[in-house]
């Protein structure tokens, strides 16, 4: 039997039926991700990167191909592949702690109450939100909500952490502080992460590998770039290193020259 990576996407394709005939969003996506790797998926909007993430999450079924996680076929959603949604999707009727608790109760069913409560607080501390445990999402800023979203996901101790443009809805300064928080958490937990982004700097700063998608329809992986920057990474120091600029340049070249924004082309 051939060796399979921890997370392996093999020949993934998806075709949606539309009134105008079948529409192929993704084709021939092969992607191998090792345990503990942080992979960023980057591409123009409409290239199907969110669809790809949903396929890994099990929320969308591919029409072709298989996703393997640790040798097992993935075909439905589960807490072992926690998702951090772009819009944080906290439940507004629950407090911060209760939102995380909902996930913890599910993955730690059978463990004593106190242990589950401690685990909730531990994860809220990781994202520096323990002080707001009793608040409701409506009382929090966008950045704080997303911190809770991160806490809820990592509290599931997932085998793969999936992030769907996690900071896309945040302002630049808040985004930077959340990126730092994610790097700090990643240094501690060493999760296997797939993150969708369309921010080149974010991809280079956070990821070990940047996977670039071609434009749809029938999008697929165009390029796979290893980011060889030592960790821990510091955004200010890194901004001046040749390695950083090299990686950045390659991605920019891919996105803006080889596969420029499809809407620009149409115009």
């Amino acid at each position: 039997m051939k060796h399979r990576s921890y997370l392996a996407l093999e020949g993934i394709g998806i075709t949606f039926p539309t009134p105008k005939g079948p529409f192929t969003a993704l084709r021939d996506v092969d992607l191998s991700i090792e345990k503990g790797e942080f992979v960023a998926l980057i591409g123009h909007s409409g290239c199907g990167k969110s669809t790809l993430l949903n396929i890994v999450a099990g929320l969308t079924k591919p029409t072709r191909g298989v996703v393997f996680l640790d040798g097992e076929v993935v075909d439905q959603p589960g807490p072992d592949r926690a998702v951090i949604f772009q819009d944080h999707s906290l439940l507004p009727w629950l407090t911060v702690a209760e939102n995380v608790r909902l996930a913890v109760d599910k993955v730690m069913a059978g463990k004593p109450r106190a242990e589950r409560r401690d685990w909730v607080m531990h994860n809220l501390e990781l994202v520096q939100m323990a002080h707001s445990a009793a608040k409701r999402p409506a009382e929090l800023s966008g950045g704080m909500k997303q911190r809770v979203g991160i806490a809820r996901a990592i509290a599931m101790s997932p085998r793969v952490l999936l992030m769907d443009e996690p900071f896309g809805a945040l302002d630049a300064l808040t985004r930077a502080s959340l990126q730092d928080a994610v790097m700090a958490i990643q240094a501690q937990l060493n999760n296997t992460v797939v993150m969708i982004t369309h921010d080149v700097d974010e991809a280079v700063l956070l990821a070990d590998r940047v996977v670039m998608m071609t434009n749809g329809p029938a999008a697929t992986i165009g390029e796979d770039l290893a980011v060889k920057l030592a960790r821990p990474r510091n955004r200010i120091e890194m901004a001046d290193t040749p390695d950083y600029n090299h990686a950045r340049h390659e991605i920019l070249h891919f996105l803006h020259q080889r596969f420029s924004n499809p809407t620009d082309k149409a115009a």
Partner: protein
Amino acid sequence: MSLLRPVPSEPPPQGCDSLPQAEIIPYPRAQSAAVEQKRGFDLSPVIDRIRGLALAVLPTVLMIAVLLMVWEIACSGKEAALPTPSEVWTESYEVIMHPLKGVEMDGLGFKIQDGGDVGIAGHILTSLARVAFGFSLSAVVGVALGILIGQSKLAYRALDPLFQILRTVPPLAWLPISLAIFQQAQPSAIFLIFITAIWPVILNTAAGVQNIPMTYRNVAKVLSLNPIEYFLKIMLPATVPHMFTGLRIGIGMSWLAIVAAEMVQGGTGIGFFIWDSYNSSLLTDTIVALVWIGLIGFTLDRIVGWIGRRVARQA
């Protein structure tokens, strides 16, 4: 990677130190303490509250006063069809001042004397008891049916057209059917309330279930919530605001239905009281009853709205 263009040969940027730095001009420190406002009296919060209350209530009170005056003047002619407010006061003085005639209060419970001369509050209590029963039934059945057609596409296709047609049938039109089924006044009145109030409950609950945001559904899927957990932790709290919109419309409609039902059926209740006063040519009594009905309907609406807000906050 080899496919990519080589990095251009421009010199790599140097460290921050060597870049020409913009000079930072220290900004004069902001005037430390903002000018403090002195408040002369400490009573201000109390006065503010009273003023706020007055501003909220005063326009309504004034409007009512103006309307009563217009009514008084308009109906003061000898051939006026309707009595004036002052005539209502004098002629229906007994009805207004002794609403609890024939009602024995017993703690929270009450007993209404059988037949004979019962005060208007007695009639209203009878009607309210009917509404409470019929409306509770429609709330339970309506929420259940609403969740069913909100959740299942098949049930929606099967039942929604039916509900859309039935909901337009006016309460009085149900009366003959209701009487035919139940033979007796009491259960047919309750059925009438039930069948009138249930449609908005069903349709609003269904809309609430159908409008649960995709993201909440996705959270539930990622957490692998089972159907019971999904129902209790996502669907119910997400649907509560819609549900209470339906219940609020429903309670209003059931109050409309009870009056209609009792007017025809007779016996007891506020609807009967109106019918009776009309037959006895006591138009002033009818007007007193209308005021009572309006106030009770308004109160019922507010109570359900208030419960809805409380539940939505707790949920």
